[in-house]
């Protein structure tokens, strides 16, 4: 995208070390609150994740996920309420169906399907949230940069 007017804030990757960039979709009621809980309890975690808040994980559209990958995300995470706890009755059931589908698509496209992960995290699971972030950052570091990463975007 040559018409980009302002590039990203200077990255900390000046040393040349691979810094994974991860987009995480959080639902307003459980996982976003879980992320808040991680903050309240000061559960330290790597700073590679950028949260996009949606009201329900079922709002996350394949287009959002593909866009994140096309723009240079090394991984995309979807999080929501535990099955049975959905604030909107059964939104997460629909999320699960769509997730499995998109994962198989990524496979077809020749991308490591571990770059897309789904995890249920409740409002009280701040620690689990931090652990998931830590675990995923390690995993993505092992996988290396996304094959779709654009040159110049770090």
């Amino acid at each position, binding site marked *: 995208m040559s018409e980009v007017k302002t590039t990203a804030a200077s990255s900390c990757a000046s040393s040349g070390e691979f810094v994974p960039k991860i987009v995480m979709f959080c639902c307003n009621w459980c996982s976003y609150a879980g992320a808040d809980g991680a903050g309240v309890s000061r559960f330290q975690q790597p700073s590679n994740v950028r949260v996009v808040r949606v009201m329900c994980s079922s709002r996350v559209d394949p287009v959002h996920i593909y866009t994140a990958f096309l723009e240079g995300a090394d991984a995309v995470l979807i999080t929501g309420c535990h099955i049975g706890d959905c604030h909107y009755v059964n*939104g997460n059931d629909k999320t699960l169906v769509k997730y499995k589908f998109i994962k198989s698509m990524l496979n077809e496209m020749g991308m490591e399907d571990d770059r897309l992960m789904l995890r249920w995290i409740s409002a009280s699971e701040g620690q689990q949230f931090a652990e998931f972030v830590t675990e995923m950052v390690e995993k993505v570091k092992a996988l290396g940069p996304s094959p779709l990463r654009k040159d110049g975007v770090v």
Partner: protein
Amino acid sequence: MANANAVGAVAVIGGGIAGVQSALDLANSGYRVYLIESKPSIGGVMAQLDKTFPTLDCSACILSPKLVEASRHPDIKLMTYSEVTALSGDVGNFTLTVKKKTRYIDVDNCVGCGDCLAKCPKKVDDEFEEGLSKRKAIYFQFPQAIPKVVTIDPDNCLMIKNGKCGNCAKVCQRGAVKYDLKDEFEDIEVGAVIMATGFEAFNPTILEAYRFDHPDVVTALQFERYTNASGPFAGHIQTSKGELPKKIAFIQCVGSRNPEINRAYCSSVCCTYAVKQSRLIKDHHPEVDVAIFNIDLRTFGKGYEEFALRAQSDGVRFINSRPSGVDVKNDGALSLRYEGAESEVIHEEFDLVVLSVGLEAPKSSVELAKILGIELDKYGFVKTDLEAPTETSRIGIFTAGVAQGPKDIPESVAQASGAASKAGALLNEARKSLETVVEIPPENPIGDEPRIGVIVCRCGTNIGGVVDVPAVVEYASTLPNVVIATEEMYSCADDTQSRIYDMIQDYKLNRFVVAACTPRTHEPLFQQTCQEAGLNPWLFEFANIREHCSWIHHDEPENATHKAKDLVRQAIGKVKYYTPLYSQSLPLVHNAVVLGGGVSGLTAANELAENGYEVDLIEKTGELGGNIRKLESYKEKLETIIQKAQSNDKIHIHYNSVMENVSGSVGNFKGQIITDGKEAKELDFGIIIIATGAHELKQPGLFGYQENPIVKTQLEFKEAIDKNESGFKNVVFIQCAGSRNDERPYCSRICCTNTVRNAIQYKEQNPDAEIYVLYRDIRTYGMYEEQYTKARELGVHFMMYDKDEPPVVSGNTVAVHDRTINLHFNLDADCVVISAATVAEEGNRDVGPMMKVPLTKDGFFMEVHPKLRPVDFGTDGVFVCGLAQFPKLFEESVSQAQAAASRACTILSRDALLSPAELSSVDESVCVGCGACKDVCPYHAITLEEKVVTQKGLSFKAVRSVINPAACKGCGCCAMSCPTGAIDQSHFDNVQLLSQVKSVFYFEEEVN
């Protein structure tokens, strides 16, 4: 009930958290409120606190939105720096004379710029900083004071005292300083009064042994200011020499549990606040040694025991000993004298000693009680009855918070809501008679080009201590469409709101971004500010750089700053595509459902009915009364409550019934009442209160329960002695049976108090009986401490055992190791009473998901915020009270049930509900009527209808999706399911979300 000419207004005396909560509840249920505070600002002691237990929330952060809401509410009139001097009239028609002490400031002209402070030559001890730093004679009580006007302290002002100086008047550009102003008196007409005057911290000077004269012996309230980022030491804990202390001691029960100085009661909060402070020390300086000297560790509230366990694992030492004194050595060092585990005297040096001072009634309450004509107890707290914890001795005058007795913040908040419910019920006839009709200012035209304003919050050091805030501001100001970016110390403070207002006006902004904490708590505040400034509230966006950044990347400030910039860019990427949204007015069903017919459920139902609403009370058994139904000693109290419910024709009691198949949402729930497992009745209701209780653990084999015939639970024993059953010569109580263990780490809260009550009752009935209480910590908090003292005086023996060495019951012998005196005993017993844990109802696992509300891991209902919203859930219109929330005593259940009713009244009293603005909508020109959205909608909000569609000049009939705004809850799953992109969810639409996703990586001008 008050007479028909009652005044629809209430005076709340005391502007601390309790008073503010009462005021907000009443104002939101249709009453005018006068909030009277003697200090220059509202906020009370909570404003001074650093963090709050057990979540370690920043106290100012969670309090600020409430203070701001109270100060902005059209039906709350703040009367700060004011005192009540006289009361006349009677319930329903009181006249209160309020003395408005002069600030020597024309408050209408003071803008709170603070220029005068800089020029004032006189420095005096700052009360807000507990004397640790100085303020000027002209001052703000604290930087975020509400109202934001200065006050002159006449005792220290050189001009007022000696007629020399006058600097402040000279520098004031607005001529607001007026030395000749006098106190004014105003009479206000109210129907009821709530006294919520809070407490004063005990002054330890009289306990000379603790050497409060030494600069490194401080009170816990002073220590709050030590750790506070905006305190005198900027949050750096230090000794008087300015060094980080290596060893810090907390001495508990200073001014509590001490009959010699007429403070026989337990102050309830000190143990947990000491645990909190110790954890804050350990968080910042793990190497500092922290010891908490206590008689019993009383962490009895919800989550408090786990909170203390965490402190223990952080290395905090809990020492079961009350130091006899603090010695100051020749070199000025501090040494504590205390008794060790082997009864030896230990001298241990500490660099800083914190005295955990108790709570006491304000000295002014004696005078105020005289004016109001109400009774106080011997300590100066407001006297109430067990079954009416918010009612004073005079009808129409209520009480809440610590004014009534020591308690923590959630209990104060609950009681404050409870008092509001009682006052509201009393004045029901006059509800809405004085209500103000709010006019929303017209919206500014927003134009085509986004003009974005950005505020980056420091949140004291919460954000500013990690993230380089000026760098984020500078970065934000370079982003396209950003017209202005600036930083704030506390963006939620009242003065910031007026700056946001000005920014929107001055820069003609049509979008606004605040980078601060979580939208889950603070979004409504900023949305309201935008609205007042003529900006549609949905043109506002939050960037969470605290919970999601500074708090979790504490050790990598550079990366945190980088991430904060990204988060701000993301927010800007999204907000620029926002469009104005509007709610729709929806009908509201004005009746309530209460689940559970125990004390809590009955009380809640009675309160709601007295406030004028129909209630369906659903009880799963064939009887009302819950846990205490079988207890003779509660019979009279329970009968009164049951009678009240049964005789009120607004209350419909369904026995042997459960609620099932609940759908809908606040204001418009639908459900089925299933009676006797078959008969189903459909019901529409507006709100629901969950009061399903909890029960005593009945675990076979627990200390021989159900195997050894002499073993009874506390309730079984109480039932027996209420019937005057006697004959036990040796009764042994075992505390913490099934609580505070690995399976159930929580403290069941009520057992210690019940044990001493029952021990007293039995000892009085049978003076010759020997009674032993085997305990880990005796947790008779608040006034229940007097019962503990009484039990000891009656000769009940108390023996402390260790968690790892519990008593062993075999036949008629109980073996125990008394750790206080380090001796083993074999006690003869013909009755063993186990204080079995209070455990959550299994049925909660069904009710929780049905009502879409969460449970704790122990199965109790989890309120939305443990501190300030103790009976609310994230799901609107659903409330909790009583043991369903956590174990609690009779009077606490009553108080909380009243609170739940009060919160419910803030919804039921409205004429209509407003629909959420962020709904889905259909673009009929793109919809092909496939029905995929209809299939996935969990609320059946979408139907397919035949419509006349006009496209490209052609009109034709076609099937299209139609969304019902009353049923749509805005989850957005239909938008994902739509194959043509015809449905989108406002505020989370594809353009906005894609722009946000793309902005994660960089910022571009246009998405398409």
